[in-house]
């Protein structure tokens, strides 16, 4: 029952919010913060109650949705891989709502759409049915258009302009285009399952179906569909361009949720559907994925180095960090994949913290251009300190969550793909370069006269930022509970030797 609650809380919260009078901003925000907090507590309880010794699916429940020919059933379950993701969603959602306390333009619709987004994300992480995984996967994309289109911000970079409408349209169309590939391959999987005599959409039964009987190269043909389809949302290299543009236009809360959680949805999809259903396809295509992952890492880091806009830097850095996730997944080594899942969690928190801080800076300075921002730490000490924490976490400093994840990925990649591992470690060094350049340029050094009057982040924003910072520190210092749970989940993946 608990898992259904995680979807129900935000959904019902959204529906109730719709009946609030539109002008009562404060009550709307308080209510949505309450809903977010209760969902966060729920996900923490769920994560704590997950017994990693037993492993496999827990808190399972299911009831049929469509009868015989399609055999779709609304079945929920939590395993080692989705448990940290549920926790991540809870944390990032609560922080996102706290940070968007100063939304004045139509706050009711904003929070209703945010709730729908989060309900979709929770749904994808907890379902055990392929149809509903795709149902919630698409649902998570739907509110994105209005959220960015209405509350986003256009920005003019001189040589090119990125309006919020362009950002919203591009983001939604690109992600739905990605999901087209996923939809086609889901249909193919169903077709193969019905050829094999058991037409069904439930993931367990599909797992036991021998796909290659019906059509010899089935798995090799349709795994890349899943890989690219989900990869688009996860920021796989050639399909990543929506992420920087989307984030530049999106409001803070939406970028936090999007980069923090939705990109992990893509990677989760690759693991849950690609690797578990089509293990042979995974074996043949993993070298391609690890190659692309390395390009992701280096490309994102190098591109981030010369960006002028803070959000572009963070956007490209999430592309680079997602590269580690791809490499980790592609190693098919218990440590590698475990590192990838931990990296999904830690990078989710990290990027959410980054975007929250950038949002705080943007709200006060109304500018995100690095060349103009100088020496902010004098007036915004708290923000500067936590930006440093987030930066150090992203360059993989031990004692913060980034290091454990990246180290495990490196160990995994080192087993077979030695040269790529060297490139990945160099990628980590490049990350250090652009993070430190950013810190030195924007926060340290003498304060420029233009920012003399700047005020510090508000109490609520400080709360959100502190929460995220604390989680980064906690996972970094004591990663044991996370590693055990993830290890239990990873060992169930077929093909992970």
């Amino acid at each position, binding site marked *: 029952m608990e898992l259904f609650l995680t979807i129900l809380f935000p959904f019902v919260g959204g529906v109730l919010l719709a009946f609030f009078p*539109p002008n009562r901003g404060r009550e709307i925000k308080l209510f949505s913060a309450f809903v977010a907090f209760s969902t966060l507590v729920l996900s923490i309880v769920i994560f704590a109650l997950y017994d990693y010794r037993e492993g496999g699916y827990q808190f399972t429940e299911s009831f049929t*949705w*469509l*009868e*015989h*020919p*399609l055999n779709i059933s609304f079945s929920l379950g939590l395993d080692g891989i989705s448990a940290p993701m549920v926790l991540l969603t809870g944390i990032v959602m609560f922080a996102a709502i706290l940070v968007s306390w100063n939304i004045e333009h139509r706050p009711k*619709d904003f929070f209703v759409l945010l709730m*729908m987004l989060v309900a*979709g994300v929770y749904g994808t992480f907890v379902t055990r049915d392929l*149809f509903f995984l*795709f*149902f*919630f996967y*698409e*649902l998570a*994309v*739907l509110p994105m*258009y*209005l959220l960015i*289109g*209405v509350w986003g911000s256009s920005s003019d970079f001189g040589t090119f302009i990125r309006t*919020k*409408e362009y950002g*919203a*349209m591009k983001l*939604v*169309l690109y992600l*739905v*285009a990605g999901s*087209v590939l996923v*939809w*086609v391959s889901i*249909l*193919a999987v*169903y*077709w193969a399952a*019905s050829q094999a005599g058991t*037409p069904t959409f439930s993931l367990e039964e599909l797992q036991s179906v021998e796909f290659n009987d019906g059509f010899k190269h089935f798995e090799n043909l349709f795994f890349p569909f899943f890989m690219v389809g989900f990869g688009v949302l996860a920021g796989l290299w050639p399909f990543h361009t929506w992420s920087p543009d989307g984030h530049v236009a999106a409001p803070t809360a939406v970028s936090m949720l999007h980069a923090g959680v939705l990109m992990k949805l893509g990677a989760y999809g690759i693991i849950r559907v690609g690797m578990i259903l089509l293990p042979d396809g995974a074996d043949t295509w993993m070298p391609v994925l690890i190659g692309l992952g390395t390009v992701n890492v280096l490309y994102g880091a190098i591109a981030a180095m010369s960006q002028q806009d803070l959000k572009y830097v963070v956007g490209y850095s999430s592309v680079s960090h997602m590269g580690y996730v791809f490499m980790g997944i592609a190693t098919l080594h218990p440590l590698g994949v475990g590192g990838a899942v931990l990296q999904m969690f830690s990078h989710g928190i990290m990027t959410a913290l980054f975007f929250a801080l950038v949002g705080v800076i943007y709200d006060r300075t109304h500018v995100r251009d690095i060349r103009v921002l100088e020496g902010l730490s004098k007036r915004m000490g708290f923000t500067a300190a936590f930006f440093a924490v987030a930066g150090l976490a992203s360059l993989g400093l031990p004692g913060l969550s980034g290091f454990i994840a990246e180290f495990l990925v490196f160990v995994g990649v080192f087993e077979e793909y030695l040269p790529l591992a060297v490139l990945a470690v160099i990628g980590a060094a490049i990350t250090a370069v652009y993070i430190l350049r950013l810190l030195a340029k924007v926060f340290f050094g003498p304060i420029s006269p233009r920012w003399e009057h700047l005020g510090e982040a508000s109490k609520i924003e400080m709360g959100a930022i502190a929460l995220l910072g604390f989680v980064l520190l906690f996972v970094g210092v004591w990663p044991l509970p996370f590693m055990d749970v993830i290890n239990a989940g990873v060992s169930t993946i077929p093909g992970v030797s």
Partner: protein
Amino acid sequence: MPETNLTSNLHLLLPEFLLATLAFAVFAIDLLLPANRKKLLAWVSVAGLIGLLALALALLWGENEEMYGGLIKVDSYALFFKSFFILLGIFIILSSVDYVGKHLSHPGEYYGLILFSVLAMNVMAASREILTAYVALELMSFSFYIMVSYARYNPRSNEAGIKYVLIGAFSSAILLFGISMLYSTIGVTHFADISATLANAGDASPALWVGLALILVGLGFKVAAVPFHMWAPDVYQGAPLPVTAYLAVGSKAAAFALMLRLFAEAFMPSIDDWQIIVAIIAAITMTVGNLVAIAQHNIKRLLAYSSIGQVGFLLVGIAALSETSPLASNGVMLHIVGYSFTNLAVFVGIIAFFNMTGKEEIADFSGLADRHPFLAAAMAIGMFSLAGLPFFAGFTTKFYLFTAAANEGLLWLAGLAIVNSLISLYYYQVEIRHMYIQPAPDMEGKLEPASAHNPHPPPVGGGAEDASRHSPTPLIIGVLILMVLGTFFVGVYPFPIVEALDAATSAILPGAGS
């Protein structure tokens, strides 16, 4: 020919007879009513329809009888579509009450014609003989011809009318020629007999499949499949708004009801011949429909092309028909239901907007979300559902339909269809962008310009409400709420509907038991 006992179990057609009497009653009452009470006619016909619906459901539940020596069969398939069409009639009449009051004269004949078209549709769904089907088809077409050109003084409505009539007559001539070819080669007109002769006819003679091809062309015109679709945009744009809604939903649903029964019961044995052709027509239809819709800036024309695209998806279902699995026909019917709810949500929204502002260009919708949040939200929900995004009917029905296609090995067709729903998301997003993101134009004052569509003010009876009404009437809001709820429920919990569809499918495809 079975024995010609024409009067046995006549009671099965009771709903149709009562419907006819109701229509004539409306015409009669129209003569007696003074000009300012014409709205009463609408409530009479709605009440009548509701009564009929109850009667039909009570009387014909679980029936499986033939009539008139096999010409008409009243089974769960016919019953399902009968109740669907009556409901549809009710919603169309309710949503056109304001519009007719404000823009059209002689409301009496208008409601009468709607009742006649509902009658025709019921018979189309129930007929199992090619001639009866043709006659019902013509009855429906005639009522639509008149309704399309109902705004007598509006040049666009006239132009739409003449185009529709002439091209319609032309297509019915082709259909008839096909029927005559079929008859001259096989000699039978009953669906059952046709499928029997086709089953053991071995390879069909050239004359036979020319006949079948021409029948396909005739029906293609009726549903506006691509090579035969060019009339649709002009007719949709010219016709009065409620009639466009009725055309987009009613006439297409009825045509597909007829096609589904025809292809399932009559042409099933030679499916290998026509499956590829229907698949190719489907592919072209959806692609052209969705592509050209991108370039539209008039909302009615946009929805015309979007409905052509939707027809492409339905034809995918027809192409994926199979004796063994009920998926395809279930998919077609489910998509018809989902598509109708969704399309009506959008059209009723446009009708409400038109009643307020009298404008139908996409750009005029900008800033609607600020002024009328519920109206904008309802239309946005409709459009997201048409684009096939979750939570709403579009996603579930499309998923069901494409799974059926994939199951029959038509994965390429399903893939193309999914790409097309992506393209459709683009042009719906343009509209939603106008409603939600573009700021409202500053011409707040002139909400109700002198209606270009109606140089002569409507007779005193029609113009009851004051011209400068700023918010949609509670009636329209009510219909809108119903549509949105329908879209939502088909999307989230389609189980009850799928149960009814299973019964209907087993009626026309005995082998495809679930």
